């Protein structure tokens, strides 16, 4: 038998994880389900979206929620020409970090812009909600370029 005859077999790793979210992320997820985006105020006054459970500077627990806008600016982005199976969209799209109006940090999500030429840093984008929402980050189906740009 040749040395090259090494046996190879498929090995599928599949787990249906269920994550309990606790009070802070739970409130954020509840907001998404209800069509609302809430951030949290950090000790230095910044509004963090998505909300952090603990202050990034002092590490103390945070609990002061602030509702933010449903539109904002793209701070950086990457264009995907060939979406991969787990990606949220099946057509070419952009990953983007988006700073929502009223927030001081950026949220990672996708922008359904149709074509790379429609994308630009500092462009404004707006949430497009999923029809049936359950309280998870995918309740935001995507962001789309804000009209009138």
């Amino acid at each position, binding site marked *: 038998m040749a040395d090259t005859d090494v046996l*190879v077999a498929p090995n*599928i790793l599949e787990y249906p994880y269920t994550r309990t979210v606790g009070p802070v992320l739970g409130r954020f997820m509840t907001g998404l389900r209800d069509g609302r985006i809430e951030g949290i105020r950090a000790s230095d006054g910044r509004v963090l979206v998505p909300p952090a459970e603990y202050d990034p500077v002092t590490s103390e627990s945070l609990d002061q929620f602030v509702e933010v806008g449903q539109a904002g600016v793209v701070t950086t982005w990457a264009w995907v020409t060939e979406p991969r199976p787990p990606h949220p969209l099946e057509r070419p799209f952009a990953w983007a970090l988006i700073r929502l109006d009223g927030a001081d940090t950026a949220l990672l999500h996708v922008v359904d812009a149709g074509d790379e030429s429609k994308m630009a840093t500092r462009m404004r984008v707006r949430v497009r909600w999923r029809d049936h929402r359950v309280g998870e980050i995918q309740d935001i189906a995507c962001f789309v370029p804000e009209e009138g740009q």
Partner: protein
Amino acid sequence: MSDTDTVEPVRSIRAPARLEYRFTAGAAQSRFLRHLVEGKILAQRCPQCGKVYVSPRGACAADGVATREEVEVADRGTVTTFCVVNVKFAQQVLTIPYVSATILLDGADIGLMHLIQEVEADQVHMGMRVEAVWSPPEERGPTLESIRYFRPTGEPDAAYESYREYV
């Protein structure tokens, strides 16, 4: 929409993950598995301590050296210890109770885990002599499942001293 008290807050999210991997058996293990198709059990001898490993993994873990010399061992041996499995769990393919045993094959220096059948679970015991029941040749593949299970040979039990070092 701002009244959060009217509906249950979200307490958990579902996060399924599916990743498709390949599993490679490695050279030594592959040769062992392919020999099972021919009804043979291939082992490897350590060049330093002389111990015979089955299933072979290409290395003697105690010495940290490659094992290249191949030897064939018998398809019968002694149950050194075992467990009667009586618990149900996901992905289980066997019906309970079943016996999972450590079997010291004749000619080997380390036990091999396999099933004991054709005997009531409460009759299985340490020192019991067992032999492999092979799948028909046309159903065999490069897997330990080519040995369907082990069954008692009817020989007298092995003396405890003959296998106590190998549990």
